[in-house]
């Protein structure tokens, strides 16, 4: 199975409508484990954040249950993020092509995709999202350990942990909102790709032309 740029995903036959494997089974499994763990921590974390959102803890079994699982699911989230980093590090490094794309991000937002430069397997926005979630997870891990073992640490570290946990969580929530929107409503085809793994050749060429050319070995005039 593919683990990044080094090995090309296979181009399936024309009889299946010209589809390209975008996410391997391992990548999809990793995404959904990490995503589930994050979503659980988000719902329970929001319950602890505001009394008006405490019902989120109720739907997962009540306050004490939410409090019990939140740190463990947090560990799974960080473990999933590290696994993801291991698989995607080559794909997630920001390149000159990304910087060129970033300068034209306005056209991406306004759906004028024909004005965008060609981009690799992930675009600049996806990479920034990945790094926000990864480093946010690391900060959440260390500050979360402070909240978890609060009686074992000095007072100043308790107070620092609270603020770091809140700021890191809010940063990831910002990314999460955009990720959910883009993955489901905005970029059609994206959601099925992370579930079943495949995209159409045209989707690949449209959204990630450099990657498309790399995996198919074909030049495209778009």
């Amino acid at each position: 199975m593919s683990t990044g740029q080094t090995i090309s995903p296979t181009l399936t036959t024309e009889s299946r409508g010209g589809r390209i494997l975008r996410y391997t089974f391992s990548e999809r499994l990793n995404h959904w484990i990490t995503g589930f763990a994050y979503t659980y921590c988000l719902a329970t974390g929001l319950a602890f954040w505001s009394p008006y959102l405490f019902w989120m803890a109720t739907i997962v079994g009540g306050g004490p249950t939410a409090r019990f699982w939140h740190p463990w699911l947090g560990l799974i989230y960080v473990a999933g993020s590290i696994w993801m980093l291991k698989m995607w590090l080559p794909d997630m490094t920001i390149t000159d092509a990304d910087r060129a794309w970033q300068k034209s991000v306005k056209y991406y937002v306004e759906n004028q995709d024909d004005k965008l430069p060609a981009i690799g397997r992930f675009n600049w926005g996806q990479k920034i999202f990945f790094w926000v979630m990864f480093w946010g997870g690391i900060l959440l891990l260390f500050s979360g350990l402070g909240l978890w073992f609060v009686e074992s640490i000095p007072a100043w570290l308790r107070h620092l942990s609270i603020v770091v946990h809140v700021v890191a969580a809010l940063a990831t929530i910002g990314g999460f909102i955009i990720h959910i929107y883009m993955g489901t409503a905005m970029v059609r085809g994206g959601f099925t790709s992370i579930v079943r793994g495949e995209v159409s050749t045209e989707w690949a060429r449209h959204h990630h032309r450099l990657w498309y050319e790399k995996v198919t070995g074909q030049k495209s005039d778009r």
Partner: protein
Amino acid sequence: MSQGTLQIRKISGHPGPVPGANVERAEQVCKMIDTTTCIGCKACEVACLEWNGYSFSETHFDNSYQTMPETQWNYWNLIKFNEHERDDGSMMLLMRKDQCMHCADPGCLRACPADGAIVQYSNGIVDFQQQNCIGCGYCVSGCPFDIPKFNPTTKKMFKCTLCSDRVSEGLEPACIKACPTGCLHFGTKDDMVGIAEGRAKQLRDHFGFDKAGVYDPPGVGGTGVIYVLHDATNPEAYGGLPKDPHVPLMVRLWKGPAKWIGNLAMVGGVLGVCLHYLRFGPKIVREQEDKERRDDRGGRP
């Protein structure tokens, strides 16, 4: 006074108004501890255990009178023994009964996310309601006196209740009842402050303790437990009593501006993506175009 524990003035993690809002003002109860007449007998520690139904905990001998280093989830009342060297080189044993201070502005209650896990009754007692506690430990971070303690078996937080069960029946707290020297007093806050100030003046005027005074820290709005100290300018000497305690700045930031900025940002984010969809809509790559293009080029993808 006895009705004071039936009405709630402040409540943790509660959406909407406090259940006891607009109740009639009740007398504030207060415990006054005169450290200058404490003999360190630990009768208050035993009475606390007896009344609250806990057995004696294992003690830690550290070459002093100290029973154990700090209060525990099932040991809410602990005398802190401190050897203090006076300016003239002579030694003084400072003894301070340590327990929850029952702050008027309780940091534990501010930090608590669980609805009704911490309440402040209209008589000023700050009480933990373990049936509502989720065991998160935020109260530990919120407390400037390091009082709430975690029970690892039940995963609930515990601390001194100021014997809210006794007080609601018109009785004084168990520790007060047991004190043989009368260094512990219980009554209304006004009365206790009056007695404490009188005692401090006596210490200043007749016993040569020029810096004697009352510890009733204004940073937490005053406390429901006040001390008479030989040297009110140096409370740290009494087993780390903080000089100017406040609800920690980070806790105030977290429960204040951070909450509003965070909520606005989250709601703004959700509204933002909805507006984007209304204005620009989805990105749809048509399979049809794909097919046409391939046909034009003789079947190449």
